[in-house]
C-alpha cells in the first residue's frame, strides 16, 4: 500500500480559525428559551453559524461542543444532559425535517442513582430520564434493587431495546435445526456487521448472562502455531484466538458459535477487510483454540478485530445469539522483512 486511499488534498497547514462574523451580522432564533443556554452561549452559537432551532436540533452534543471550545466549563456531557437538541427540536415543531447532511441520531439520557447500605446492598433505586416530555414520567424510584424493572424502564423509553413483538417475529419460516450459513459474508454483509457490532452486544445481551460469559483471548497472527506480529506482503493471513465460555449452572454445556475476524487499517484510511469466518461448537469451561485462514493483506499496519456470537446448540438460522462480543486483538504489520544486520567482522 503506497499512500492514502483518500482523495487528493493540496492544503498545507490549515488553521481552523473561528468564523469572523459577529452576532451583529445575523439574527437567529431565541436560544435563551432553551434551558441551559444564556446570553453568552447564545451569542457564541450564532457566531459559530448555528442560527436556528433546526440548526441546533440536528447536531450532536459533540458537534455543538466542538463549536464552543472557548466557552469555559462547557462539555458535550453537559449539553447532552440538558438535551439542547431535544429542546430545540420541540421548539422547531413536528413538521420540520432534519438537514439531510446531518446524522439522524438522538440521545436517550438517564441518571441512575443507587442508595447503598454499609454492606453494599441497594436500599433504593432512582432513575431520571432527561428526554421525557412529561414531568410525571421523568422520575421513577423503588425500594431495593430490581434488575428486571430497571431494564424494563429503559426499554420503555428506547424502542430499539424493546422485546420483539409477535408480529415482528422471524419473517422467514424456521428451517430445520442446523449450523448457521457457512457462506462467506459478502462485503456488504461485512460492512453491516462491522457497523452494528457494538450495538449488537448491548441489544442482544440477555440479562441473565454475565458479561464474562464469553471471552476472546490472544487474537493475533500465527505462523506454524506460533504468534507473530509481521506478515510478508502476499503471505496468506493466518489468525488464531482462544474462545472461553464460562460454565454456568443454568446453561447447557455446549454451544454453537460463529466468529468473524477483520483487519482494520491503522493508517487513517478507513480500510477494513474481512479475513475469515469460523464456526463450530464450544464446550463451557473448556478453552477452545480457533484457527482460520484468510487472504493476504496489503502492506500496512492493522489491528485485528473478532466478533463472536454464541448460540444454543443445534440452533436454527433465525435464532438470536445468547451473547455476542467484539474484541480487538494485536497490532500486526504487513511489511517487507528488514534487511539482516551485517555481522561485524571479528
Amino acid at each position: 500500500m503506497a499512500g492514502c486511499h483518500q482523495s487528493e488534498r493540496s492544503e498545507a497547514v490549515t488553521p481552523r480559525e473561528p468564523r469572523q462574523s459577529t452576532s451583529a451580522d445575523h439574527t437567529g432564533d431565541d436560544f435563551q428559551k432553551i434551558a441551559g443556554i444564556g446570553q453568552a452561549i447564545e451569542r457564541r452559537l450564532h457566531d459559530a453559524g448555528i442560527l436556528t432551532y433546526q440548526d441546533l436540533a440536528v447536531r450532536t452534543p459533540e458537534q455543538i461542543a466542538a463549536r464552543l471550545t472557548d466557552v469555559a466549563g462547557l462539555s458535550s456531557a453537559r449539553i447532552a444532559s440538558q438535551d439542547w437538541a431535544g429542546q430545540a427540536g420541540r421548539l422547531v415543531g413536528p413538521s420540520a425535517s432534519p438537514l439531510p447532511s446531518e446524522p439522524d441520531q438522538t440521545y436517550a439520557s438517564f441518571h441512575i442513582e443507587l442508595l447503598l447500605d454499609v454492606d453494599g446492598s441497594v436500599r433504593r433505586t432512582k432513575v431520571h430520564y432527561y428526554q421525557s416530555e412529561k414531568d410525571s414520567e421523568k422520575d421513577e424510584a423503588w425500594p431495593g434493587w430490581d434488575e428486571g424493572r430497571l431494564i424494563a424502564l429503559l426499554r420503555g423509553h428506547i424502542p430499539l431495546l424493546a422485546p420483539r413483538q409477535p408480529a415482528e417475529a422471524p419473517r422467514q419460516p424456521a428451517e430445520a435445526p442446523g449450523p448457521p450459513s457457512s457462506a462467506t459474508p459478502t462485503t456488504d454483509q461485512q460492512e453491516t456487521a462491522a457497523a452494528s457490532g457494538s450495538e449488537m452486544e448491548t441489544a442482544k445481551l440477555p440479562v441473565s448472562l454475565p458479561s464474562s460469559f464469553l471471552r476472546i483471548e490472544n487474537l493475533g497472527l500465527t505462523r506454524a502455531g506460533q504468534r507473530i506480529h509481521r506478515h510478508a506482503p502476499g503471505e496468506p493471513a493466518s489468525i488464531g484466538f482462544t474462545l472461553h465460555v464460562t460454565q454456568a449452572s443454568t446453561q447447557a454445556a455446549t454451544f454453537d458459535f460463529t466468529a468473524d475476524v477483520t483487519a482494520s487499517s491503522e493508517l487513517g484510511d478507513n480500510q477494513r477487510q474481512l479475513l475469515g469466518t469460523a464456526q463450530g461448537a464450544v464446550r463451557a469451561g473448556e478453552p477452545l483454540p480457533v484457527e482460520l485462514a484468510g487472504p493476504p493483506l496489503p502492506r500496512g499496519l492493522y489491528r485485528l478485530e473478532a466478533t463472536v456470537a454464541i448460540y444454543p446448540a443445534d440452533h436454527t438460522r433465525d435464532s438470536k445469539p445468547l451473547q455476542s462480543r467484539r474484541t480487538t486483538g494485536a497490532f500486526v504489520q504487513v511489511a517487507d522483512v528488514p534487511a539482516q544486520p551485517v555481522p561485524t567482522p571479528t
Partner: protein
Amino acid sequence: MTTPVPLKSPQGHYPKCPSKSHFPVITGFVTPGSDFPPPHPLDASISLDVFDPTEFVGPGQYERIRVVETDTPFLIEVNWCICGQFAESICGCWEITFFLDDVDGVGPSSGQLPNSTRAVAVDSQPAVPGTTDDVTKRCYNLQVTIPANTVQPGAYSLLVIIKLYSGDCPPQPGKVLGDYLGFAEIPVLVFVPE
C-alpha cells in the same frame, strides 16, 4: 525538647552550572507501531516551545521564553515527526489542541487555550527518506500566536495534544484514531503583568 542549632554551612552540594540552557519538556507520542520490536514500523516524536514574537535574539530567531508578559502576544511552536516505513502511508488529519493548567489551582485561565485548536492535513508534508539514521520521516511545524491579554497572570503548565482523525481536515475530520496520541508539556510557564 531541644532547640535546633542554626546550620553554618550547606549540608548538601550546590548544583553544577549547566553547559547550556536547559528547558525541560515532558513529551510522548504513541502510535500503533510503538510496541513492535525494533525497528519500529511506525514511531513519532514531538517537541514544544514558547517564544516572544516581539524579541529577536538573532536573524529570524525569536527569543525563547518561559516568562510571558500578559500584555504581549506569545508564540507556541510544535514540531512533530512520524518515522518508520509506514510514515508515507498515513492518511487523515492531525488535530492540535492546547491546554493551560494553573499551578496554583485557582487561576482564571485554566482549560483549553481559546481559539488555539488547529488542523493539519497529514499529506501536507511529504515523507522524506532518512539520511543519517536511515529512517523515513514526515515532519510538521506548527506555530500559533496567542494574542496579548489572553491569559491572566499566574503560574501555569502548557500542554499540547495531537490526535489523528481518519477523514479530511475540517469540515469533515472523520473519527479519531485512538491508537495515536502525541503530547508535550512545559511544566512551568509564568505569566506576569507588565
